[in-house]
């Protein structure tokens, strides 16, 4: 979230699309109802199903899953055509005026440089024209046909209301109503917020779904302001934190990236991370990368990380592929290329796609270790549970360790919520049986491994035996010790750069924030963006002061928000080019002639003159991007692609199937149903129900009572067609698997008319398995395709094809 949950109260229009906040985040959704009640805010819900969010919406429009980009670019097209643009914002705070290199173009659904065999682009033409001064060339008049704005206009002109109706199945008048309501927020005094979740991410073009809305928000001038922003409603309590701390194959903490094997040494690595500003005066904050990187290495290997060995740069593993995400992991297992797998929490057997493949993969492991408070399906993948897990234990040679861990109630530490608040929690209960904290388990595994290497030596022991593990009790580091490591400390006195005689931080003291980090090895910080969470002022994550001047919803003294306790990212953009709030009634920070100040921690150097320095300080441009350089694999602009399994062919580019650069493993392609398949005619989607949380609450008696049994949802029309009765049993099958479920026949799902052809939607909730209190059931992952988003590999759970038929209930 760029903003916070409590900030949603400041909005005028909430658009819930690609999510279902009322069901998945009810207590955050409270702030939507507050905005409605107190500001007369409106709520729009766009979803294939009439969800619980829709039940309290002012306007609901149906959409076919997997066609969000067409819808959003359609809205953007509507805004631009009707001059519903916050011009001052667009001109000053975006790269609309930047001139794009000649050669770049978009044709037949592809951008310049596509290589079909590699399923990848040569992105060399996706760039700005760089002038002699080394800065990007811009045209403030936006007249140059090669400026981003004009390219964008041309790119989205195809998404007319008629085209949107044909692709999305959203009736034209409903689409226009939504577009009109949204376009009203282009005035500086009206703000829209976007609340989305896995409904946008779990597609083969998930990242571009989100970019589309982000771009629309820029057109409307809604990024960085109160009641605006792009608000990703993260699914799990600390998935934000685990990502911040970099627990992904290609990440270092704080969104730094792991070297790949082309970055043969420290300097090569840093050379691609210089982030020289693309416009004069811009902060381009990533210029400090080296400080954060070195401080991280010092945290890892302490004294062993020296300038001589480039702070142990070589001890970091180097990637040979973009990433070893969970999908690749199971692919490797399946190829027999993996020996062991350790699951700390998580329940991949139900969470990852194509369950048949998952079981086969796990069965090829030598060993599997699970750590969990609950009895997960993954830890019992080898156990036969009839049709719910039909395996032959004797044929599975995997050695499995099921380790009992404590749960939240027995554990101490901080979680980072969707609004980037790090909140500390305290243990209140005694753990059951011999359950142990994750810290204890990890420490026990590490110390044993380290001691084995000390004793026996072995393959390159250095990074293991030299890891800084100086905790009071090496067998179980405390949460406080680790929190201080994340924050970072000074190993030597840290001097003021402007006055080398002035000590900023005494040696041995915790650093106040990442501003004090240095690249000479004199500081540590496990995760630079968390720096400030636990400094000499104490544990800022444990703060509980609820004061909120003028009820802005900032709560600056409650817990700690990264970075540096900032509550709304890009908040400098809440003020105009002269530093005055776009909307005086929603002032956030303002420029008083000397400095920035207000209700939030300014997201800009406090003394940076508003006319000189752009608000998007993390970008080399200093402004936000309609046209993105480099980062996106599937294009600098979003464009509509169908899901890999789609009930219709791509109307914009009939030859293109799925996302042209999404990674598909050999063999998996054969497992996709044809577009507009006769064999699998129905468009399925998976989702959560409000009564349950993922695969946890089926273990919870009360929630099992509230939603006891696995079901699928279909329209009355489809039920009639297929002779399916409400509450009767059905079989649903895809090209990859088959499941049995009860049928919920509802008016809340209606067939969509896409390009004249009716598309039936089959909804499949995901909460059931074969352990726990609830009735045994299946999950959508028995059906879903093994393909992910082109940029971050989020599996395509929200749009795939199935068939359905009524069946007699299972015996017993």
């Amino acid at each position, binding site marked *: 979230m760029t903003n916070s949950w409590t900030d949603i109260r400041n909005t005028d229009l909430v658009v819930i699309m690609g999510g279902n906040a009322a069901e998945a985040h009810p207590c955050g959704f409270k702030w939507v109802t507050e905005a409605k009640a107190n500001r007369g805010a409106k709520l729009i819900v766009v979803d294939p199903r009439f969800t619980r969010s829709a039940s309290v919406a002012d306007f609901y429009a149906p959409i076919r899953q997997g066609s969000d980009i067409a819808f959003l670019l359609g809205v953007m097209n509507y805004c631009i055509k009707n001059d519903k643009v916050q011009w001052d914002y667009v001109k000053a705070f975006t790269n609309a005026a930047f001139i794009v290199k000649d050669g770049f173009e978009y044709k037949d659904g592809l951008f310049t440089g596509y290589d079909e065999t590699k399923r990848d682009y040569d992105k060399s033409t996706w760039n700005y024209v760089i002038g002699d001064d080394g800065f990007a060339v811009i045209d403030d008049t936006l007249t140059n046909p090669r400026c981003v704005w004009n390219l964008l206009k041309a790119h989205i002109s195809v998404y007319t209301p008629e085209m949107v109706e044909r692709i999305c199945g959203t009736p034209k008048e409903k689409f226009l109503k939504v577009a009109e309501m949204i376009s009203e927020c282009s005035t500086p005094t009206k703000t829209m917020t976007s609340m989305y979740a896995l409904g946008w991410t779990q597609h083969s073009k998930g990242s571009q779904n989100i970019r589309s809305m982000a771009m629309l928000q820029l057109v409307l001038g809604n990024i960085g302001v109160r009641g605006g922003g792009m608000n990703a409603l993260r699914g799990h309590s600390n998935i934000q934190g685990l990502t911040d701390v970099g627990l992904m194959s290609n990440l270092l903490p704080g969104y730094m990236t792991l070297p790949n094997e082309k970055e043969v040494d420290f300097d090569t690595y840093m050379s691609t991370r210089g982030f020289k500003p693309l416009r004069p005066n811009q902060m381009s904050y990533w210029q400090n990368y080296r400080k954060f990187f070195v401080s991280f290495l010092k945290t890892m290997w302490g004294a062993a990380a020296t300038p001589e060995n480039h702070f142990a740069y070589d001890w970091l593993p180097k990637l040979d592929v973009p990433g070893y995400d969970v999908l690749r992991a199971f692919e490797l297992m399946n190829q027999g290329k993996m020996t062991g797998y350790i699951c700390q929490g998580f329940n991949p057997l139900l969470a990852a796609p194509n369950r048949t493949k998952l079981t086969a993969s796990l069965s090829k492991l030598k060993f599997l270790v699970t750590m969990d408070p609950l009895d997960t399906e993954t830890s019992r993948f080898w156990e036969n549970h009839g049709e719910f897990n039909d395996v032959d234990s004797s044929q599975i040679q995997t050695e499995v360790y099921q380790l009992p861990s404590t749960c939240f109630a027995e554990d101490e530490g901080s979680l980072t919520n969707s609004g980037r608040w790090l909140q500390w929690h305290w243990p209140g209960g005694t753990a059951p049986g011999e359950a142990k904290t994750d810290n204890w388990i990890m420490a026990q595994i590490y110390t044993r491994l380290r001691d084995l290497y000390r004793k026996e030596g072995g393959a390159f022991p250095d990074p293991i035996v030299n890891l800084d593990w100086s905790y009071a009790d090496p067998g179980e580091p405390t949460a406080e010790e680790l929190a201080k490591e994340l924050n970072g400390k000074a190993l030597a006195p840290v001097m003021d750069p402007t006055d080398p005689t002035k000590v900023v931080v005494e040696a041995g003291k915790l650093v106040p924030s990442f501003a004090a980090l240095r690249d000479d090895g004199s500081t540590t910080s496990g995760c630079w963006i968390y720096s400030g969470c636990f400094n000499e002022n104490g544990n800022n994550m444990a703060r509980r002061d609820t004061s909120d001047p003028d009820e802005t919803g900032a709560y600056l003294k409650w817990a700690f928000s990264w970075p540096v306790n900032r509550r709304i990212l890009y908040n400098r953009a809440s003020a105009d080019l002269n530093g005055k709030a776009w909307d005086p009634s929603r002032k956030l920070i303002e420029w008083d002639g000397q400095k920035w100040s207000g209700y939030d921690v300014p997201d800009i150097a406090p003394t940076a003159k508003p006319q000189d320095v752009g608000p998007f300080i993390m970008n080399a441009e200093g402004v936000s991007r309609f046209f993105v350089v480099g980062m996106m694999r599937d294009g600098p602009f979003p464009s509509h692609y169908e899901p890999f399994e789609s009930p219709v062919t791509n109307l914009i580019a009939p030859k293109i199937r799925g996302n042209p650069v999404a990674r598909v493993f050999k063999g998996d392609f054969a497992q996709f149903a044809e577009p507009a398949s006769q064999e699998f005619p129905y468009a399925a989607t998976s989702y959560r129900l409000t009564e349950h949380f993922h695969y946890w609450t089926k273990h919870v008696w009360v929630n099992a*009572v509230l939603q006891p049994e696995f079901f699928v949802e279909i329209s009355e029309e489809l039920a009639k067609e297929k002779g399916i009765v409400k509450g009767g049993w059905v079989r649903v099958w895809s090209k990859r698997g088959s499941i049995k479920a009860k049928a919920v026949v509802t008016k809340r799902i209606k067939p969509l008319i896409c390009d004249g052809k009716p598309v039936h939607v089959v909804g499949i909730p995901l909460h059931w398995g074969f352990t726990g209190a609830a009735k045994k059931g299946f999950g959508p992952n028995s059906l879903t395709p093994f393909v992910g988003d082109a940029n971050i590999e989020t599996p395509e759970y929200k749009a795939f094809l199935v068939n359905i038929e009524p069946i007699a209930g299972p015996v017993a």
Partner: protein
Amino acid sequence: MFPPVPNPTTQPVPPKFGDQDLIRRSASTVTPPAQRQTEVAKLIDVSKCIGCKACQSACIEWNDTHPEIGINTGVYDNPHDLTPDMFTLMRFTEWENPETNNLEWLIRKDGCMHCEDPGCLKACPAPGAIVQYSNGIVDFIHENCIGCGYCIKGCPFNIPRISQVTHTAYKCTLCSDRIAVGQGPACAKACPTQAIVFGTKDEMKEHAAGRITDLKSRGFANAGLYDPPGVGGTHVMYVLHHADKPEIYAGLPNNPRISPIVEAWKGVTKYAGLAVIGFAAAAGFMHYLVAGPNRVSEEDEEAAEKLTGEEPRP
């Protein structure tokens, strides 16, 4: 935002109300308290409800009930009905508004309405099994309940349920134990969107008025408050977007009142009945005084003997 329900105290505090505040007690007469307590009420704003069932969850946890795990019958309502272990229930209705042709998903939290004139209490034959406090709370006292099920027949809203285990009647207590220490009901505290709020009945009406204005501004011309006069008003009220047709909300009764049959049974029959019985007895007694016993005479005996062919006595 409406002031949230405060956190519970862990200190012992004297209850804010108790038996001294009873205004009604089943099958018995009470001397009403000198001063009636401020009437409390729970307001359920159906237009704000997202049907998340947090109220059901909180209710189960607070009241330590243990409903059984059922099955899916093709709808979202679970459990399928109120039970002795489920005092409140989300009832889902998919309603196509004929005026707008829009689908409206009406979700109503069902449960005890805490009527000002409680039919359950009126029907109850067991002294003190059902009580009404001066703050409006209608509560079941299980020690006094005999499990006859008369409350079920008395209730205009079909709320009480008899446990097949304890054979006593159960329903929402409005969390009397929480309110007694200055808390709000568990459901009201939990409700994510504050579709359930709790306070004095006047506060609730005031709050409802604001909500109704907002709803009217959003095109719900018939938005209104459900506080049925037929039962003297209730201490659980609804804000409905279509107050003109409460029945579309999973059969919420339009102008509910205690069934005239129950009124007759617990009214005239009760008194007339005893009168009749008394009269019968009295009549017999009077007759005896007037007519005296009907004795068999000697002549009768002789006649009988003669008939049976015996010689008459000399």
